[in-house]
């Protein structure tokens, strides 16, 4: 697990590593139960998550001799046993059927044993598809219950990369996985006494979690290590993800794309060949990154140069050493120093690259200014957006801006709506007729239909949730993650524990897209003395973002927990991590170019 987060004595929940250990054990059990040399076939989406669970050499020890990626190309191998790991998605069944048929017909000399492990569960529909393709009998079908994977001490993901896409098509399959994964956490860390939810899907997930307690009981005598859970439906706040993230980690995601905590960088950043791309793990194994990730990009430069001075000072202190004892101390510090030094070099390269890309580029500035203009002053950015289209800026950027304006300024007038749509089709291709229809369907980019129809009212929320803060630097407000805008989702969490949600119905919730919110409590069997023991510690709240969370929001939650008089630590769980780009891309559909 070279890049996976080290979870020994994890920061917020000490034995968080247990959940990863269990998944790893299950994987090993699966591999051990299938005798002989074997090959593994992964669906691409699962490649990194599984890498975070087990290192390749531990697979090798279990006679895994080769790893293949699942697509439409046939797998040519002499190995007689193949294990497929796939999400239960219809498209994947097509690929699998193709392989099984290939092994059956073209490769007769090599009769293969095939196992299909559905992750995390098999579904009727996939079995049916395999049956229809006439290959169901050709493989043994089983399940591998891979659910929440820790990306860090405080970030867990289900890795359901298509869950937003499914949300668009009205398929809520992922909700069951959301609830059952939290139920599993309860098995390790005790019954969570307080369940809150906001948004329709949040409610369904919360109710399902309650039901699971009865349906598959767990040991309720464990003192809860998680005190609250909040299910947040992404649909509640579609504004935040389309805005450009301005934290260090968020900007890295915007510029290079982070996948399951890995980012691909130029080899030169890591002191290697410039031609190659290298994967680098961004998590709190890297101490420097842990300090940097939540900072607003404006603070990163000064912080880094200070840090650089400190490190080189420490490093140079060797020249002043006199006593043997001092040498010993220095030598003891050396590995840490070297590590810090290495990571410092990488982050300096990244920061330099980001600054180069943004500083001289007026358009990046313009983009940020326009976003803030829309958010703060409700400006109409039609001209700017039009200009972006003329310059053929990436479609995701254009659509993000359009969505932002549509959401904040209560949609477009019919005429400009049609103009924009036409221009997008003309410039970026007719296939985006589906993209536009999808964005319209979920209310991100649409024409105004009069006041009554649209519930979501950003301007009301802006006031009641105090979303805009001009002096975030001084107040250390969470709005620093977007240089002055605080995410709706995180403000909702903040409200939940400061003033409580009661009484916010008229000022906040009625202006959210579906207005659904609520709370359940679960009583456990613990005695009062055990209860009081718990309350002395800092409480832990699990914030579960259904259908995606951005790095900026995670950072905002971290900042929130560091604020004075805030006695909660947050752990973020999510179906998957998103960015504005990936969110927009979820609306794309396969079609001829």
């Amino acid at each position, binding site marked *: 697990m070279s890049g996976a987060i080290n979870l020994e004595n994890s920061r917020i929940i000490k034995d968080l590593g247990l959940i990863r250990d269990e998944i790893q054990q299950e994987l090993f059990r699966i591999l051990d139960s299938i005798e002989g040399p074997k090959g593994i076939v992964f669906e691409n989406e699962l490649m990194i998550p599984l890498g975070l669970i087990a290192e390749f050499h531990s697979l090798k020890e279990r006679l895994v001799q080769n790893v293949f990626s699942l697509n439409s190309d046939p797998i040519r191998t002499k190995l007689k046993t193949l294990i497929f790991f796939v999400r239960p998605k219809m498209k994947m069944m097509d690929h699998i059927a193709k392989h099984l048929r290939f092994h059956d017909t073209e490769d007769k000399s090599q009769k293969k044993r095939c196992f299909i492990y559905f992750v995390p569960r098999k579904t009727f529909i996939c079995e*049916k598809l395999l049956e229809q393709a006439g290959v169901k009998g050709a493989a043994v079908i089983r399940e591998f219950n891979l659910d929440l994977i820790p990306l860090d001490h405080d970030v867990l993901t289900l890795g359901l990369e298509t869950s937003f896409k499914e949300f668009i098509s009205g398929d809520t399959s992922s909700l069951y996985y959301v609830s059952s994964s939290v139920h599993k956490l309860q098995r390790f860390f005790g019954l969570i006494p307080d369940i809150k939810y906001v948004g329709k899907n949040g409610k369904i997930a919360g109710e399902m979690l309650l039901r699971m307690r009865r*349906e598959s009981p767990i040991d309720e005598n464990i003192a809860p290590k998680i005190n609250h859970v909040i299910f947040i439906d992404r649909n509640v706040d579609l504004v935040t993800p389309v805005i450009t993230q301005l934290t260090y980690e968020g900007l890295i995601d915007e510029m290079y794309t982070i996948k399951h905590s890995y980012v691909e960088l130029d080899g030169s950043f890591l002191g290697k060949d410039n031609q190659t791309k290298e994967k680098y793990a961004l998590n709190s194994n890297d101490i420097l990154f842990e300090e940097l990730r939540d900072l607003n990009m404006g603070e990163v430069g000064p912080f880094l140069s200070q840090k650089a001075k400190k490190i080189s000072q420490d490093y140079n202190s060797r020249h002043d050493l006199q006593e043997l004892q001092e040498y010993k101390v220095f030598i003891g510090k050396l590995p840490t120093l070297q590590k810090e030094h290495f990571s410092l070099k990488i982050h300096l390269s990244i920061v330099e690259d980001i600054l180069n890309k943004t500083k001289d580029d007026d358009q990046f500035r313009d983009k940020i200014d326009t976003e803030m203009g829309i958010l703060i002053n409700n400006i109409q950015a039609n001209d700017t957006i039009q200009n972006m289209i003329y310059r053929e800026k990436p479609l995701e950027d254009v659509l993000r801006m359009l969505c932002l304006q549509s959401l904040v300024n209560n949609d477009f007038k019919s005429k400009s709506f049609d103009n924009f749509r036409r221009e997008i089709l003309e410039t970026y291709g007719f296939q985006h007729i589906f993209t536009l229809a999808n964005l319209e369907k979920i209310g991100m980019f649409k024409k105004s239909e009069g006041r009554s129809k649209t519930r979501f009212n950003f301007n009301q929320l802006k006031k009641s949730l105090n979303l805009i803060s001009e002096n975030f630097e001084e107040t250390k407000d969470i709005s620093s993650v977007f240089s002055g805008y605080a995410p709706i989702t995180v403000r909702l969490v903040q409200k939940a524990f400061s003033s409580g949600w009661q009484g916010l119905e008229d000022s906040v919730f009625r202006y959210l897209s579906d207005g659904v919110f609520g709370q359940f409590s679960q009583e456990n069997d613990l005695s009062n003395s055990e209860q009081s023991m718990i309350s002395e510690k800092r409480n832990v709240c699990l914030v579960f973002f259904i259908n995606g969370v951005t790095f900026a929001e995670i950072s905002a939650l971290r900042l929130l927990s560091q604020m004075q008089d805030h006695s909660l630590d947050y752990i973020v769980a999510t179906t998957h991590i998103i960015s504005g780009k990936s969110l927009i891309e979820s609306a794309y559909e396969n079609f001829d170019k």
Partner: protein
Amino acid sequence: MSLISTEWTILSNHFYRQQELYKLDWDVKLEDYILSGGQYGGALALARDETQFVKAQTSMLKSKVFIYTSAGKLIGQIDWMEKSRILSMGWTDNGRLAIATEDGAVDFYSVLGKHVWTFNLPKAFMEEGILFVDLLSNGLIAMTKTFRLFATNEFGELTTPLFNEYKMPKIRQGPKCRMGIEAKFANSRNVEVWLGLSDGNIAVIDSNGYEERDVGMTEREHVVKMALSSNGKMVCLVSNKGRFVVYTSDLGNFYLDFQSHATRAPTQMLWCSSDSILSYWQNVDLLLMIGPTGESVQFDYDGKIYLVPEPDGARVVSATKCDFISVVPSPLTDIFKIGSASDASILFDAIQNFETKSAKVDEIIRSISQRGKLSEAIKMCIKAAAHEFRPDLQRKLLRTACFAKSYLDFFDHDSYADKCKIIRVLNNIRTYTIGIPITYPQYKLLGIEGLIERLLDHNQHLLAFSICKSLKMNTDQVLLRWAAEKIRTNEQKDKILQAILDKIGMESSISYSRIAAVALSEGKESLAMELLNYEFKVAHQVPLFLRMNNIDFALQKAIQSGQTDFIYLVIFHLIDSRRPINESLMYISKFPLSRNLLVAYWKSSYAFHDKLKILYQISRLDHEASLLCVLESSKHFLIQECRISAQNENSAENPENIDNSLAIGNMKTRPRHTSDLSTQISNNLLDSKNDPREDIKKNSLDLNGFIEDQNDPSEFNYSTNETFFQKKLQTLRIAALSFQQSHDSFMTKMVQDNIDILQLQKKYESDYRGQFIGLTITQTIDKVVTNKDLKEAEKLYKKFVVPQKKFWWIVIRALARARHFSLLLEFSKKKSPIGYEPFVQVCVQNFAPQEAEQFVDKISDLYLRGRYFARLGRFEKAREIAAQSKNQELSEFISELESKSQGNDGDW
């Protein structure tokens, strides 16, 4: 001193015992039957031996298979009148009776003779005939009459197992004997097959290959019988010359060569645990035991017997009794061997004496205790009690342990109590009424869960329940099986329900849906309904409501459960049923979630699109329906459409092609009735005179030809494939029409524009060079400009209502990229709506700084003009402007840039 050791037989320093388990008064003439007994004291299945002459009065028995306990109690009968001849019988690991018959079927029955399920041998056996089938405990080996060998390793339940055909060289003569080795003992982890060949060699065959091994047969000698020891480590081969040879099971080491007087192959030969061999010759009524060093001893039986292998010995079934022959377990020899001086033996004797009032006992126990051996001796007595069958001896041994343990300061009393409980359980099970003569080692192998399972198979619910209670085990499984039996009785519904509720209650974790499922399969629907009310897992109610055809409830519960998987279950139930499609869709479209899920499924394949359109229509989703038409104009669906219509052509001509076409299309072929649906839709959707669908039908034939010619049709290209191109246009026309029907003029126009641009692109591909199809409108204009045809570009600009500013951007970008700078200059002479900054930018981007300069002068804003000059490195010009405009900021910018530019110019 007990005399039990006098009943033991000594062979090569090992003690063996022949215990009578039960006297049998079952009036069965074993000569007329074949018999198969299950492991772990399992039941005995008897079927008529059809090779024997049938006396008139027994001929009626021919039609049945009987199942007896080892105590000779008849517990099951299977009617065999209509069935085919039995080839092989065997008991599986989970206590089912498997019977292979001549027609290639393998049937499974419960121990009480109830049919469980059936599968068939591979087709080859039907075609070529069955030479043999041998059932193993969880698989089988079988050979066709043309000597093709098959094996399987997994008797799942209700799924036909996967058969491996093992590669064999051609053989002319059938094997003399064969043996199947369970996968757990085989190196390959697949069933291994040994065949005795007529040349004396043994063929060892598994999934990895075929190998012949020399086993030291002399001339004209060959193997006629083989047996593997119960631990899988040793193998015994008997030759036609009466020779017994023992090897390790890899044939690596040779152990024993024993020459018997027999002239015939033994009727039965097996291992008695792992160190001696039992061999039975029916013709001479001889049962011989051969020990590890070649000594032998004979056991006497009258009439025919059957040997049933057990892991720790063998049961011997004769007409009058059931015996068990085994090695005497070591705790028993330790105590009861004549002359034994072990501590346990001394302890046992002392306490027996105490009971006959001798006072020395205290002294003896203390002396053992002083040597520190007392605890061990006590444990030995407890162990011996567990291994002993006779309750009186068990009692004596336990009493010894119980008495002696009071001398110890520390003793694990719980484990003593547990052992006692187990012994009591085993005694109960061995009684005549239950008739399962399980030994302690067998119990260890089977496990308590396995044992409970066996009892439930025997319908001994009460006993199983009390065992669970006394061992503090979960009783769910027992109660569930009990409830199932209760439901099968003829009692009144209310009584059954009440009985179940009384026993199981509400707080139990037992799933009521499973109980309800039993009621349903017994045809008691109203009972099932009532039971289902007590199920608290919502999702589990769904399948049962479906079986009861209560769609409303099923769908409601599925939605409530939040598990989309169960919603799909309901959906499939509906759409795969024979009910009218409209009715099914009415149910499904009631809830957005179920509708969305069906849409996602149906969208994936063209074969379902006709039905999907009906769903859209029912749900009034005109916009979605039109978008689907657009989607159908993509390569992916055009290909699918062609494949499906090709299949329909084929299958109409030749119904046998359906299988093949399934393999190609991988989705169900379009059902016949959907063609009516499509006309229905077209009638609803299209009133237009020129129905584009007609053209499509005309085209479909050509397309079929095309599909067959190409290996991978997904590689086709609209530019070269006119047919597909036309088809795409037609499909788009339908989409446009569909949008028009729903009065969406914007979308109609967009689709129409797409059709127009595609046609123009087709034309450009012949007018200019390169590929146009697939480009966006903007890109098309760009490419036309690149081809220096500004006039044509102008036309496009007007036709597709491109904004003027955008058009300018496209043109200057294209010209700069193609380095048509003179044209760019000419173009700039018109009044630019976007200013001249973009001109500079495009030139610089295309590495033409000199050309860029010409346009900087045209920038009206002095500040910007100055900046651009500076950026182009023309600092003197820039400074001139700065001075002229007195712009401080500009001056600073210029000097900053100038100082920076030492070394790298033009980098911006």
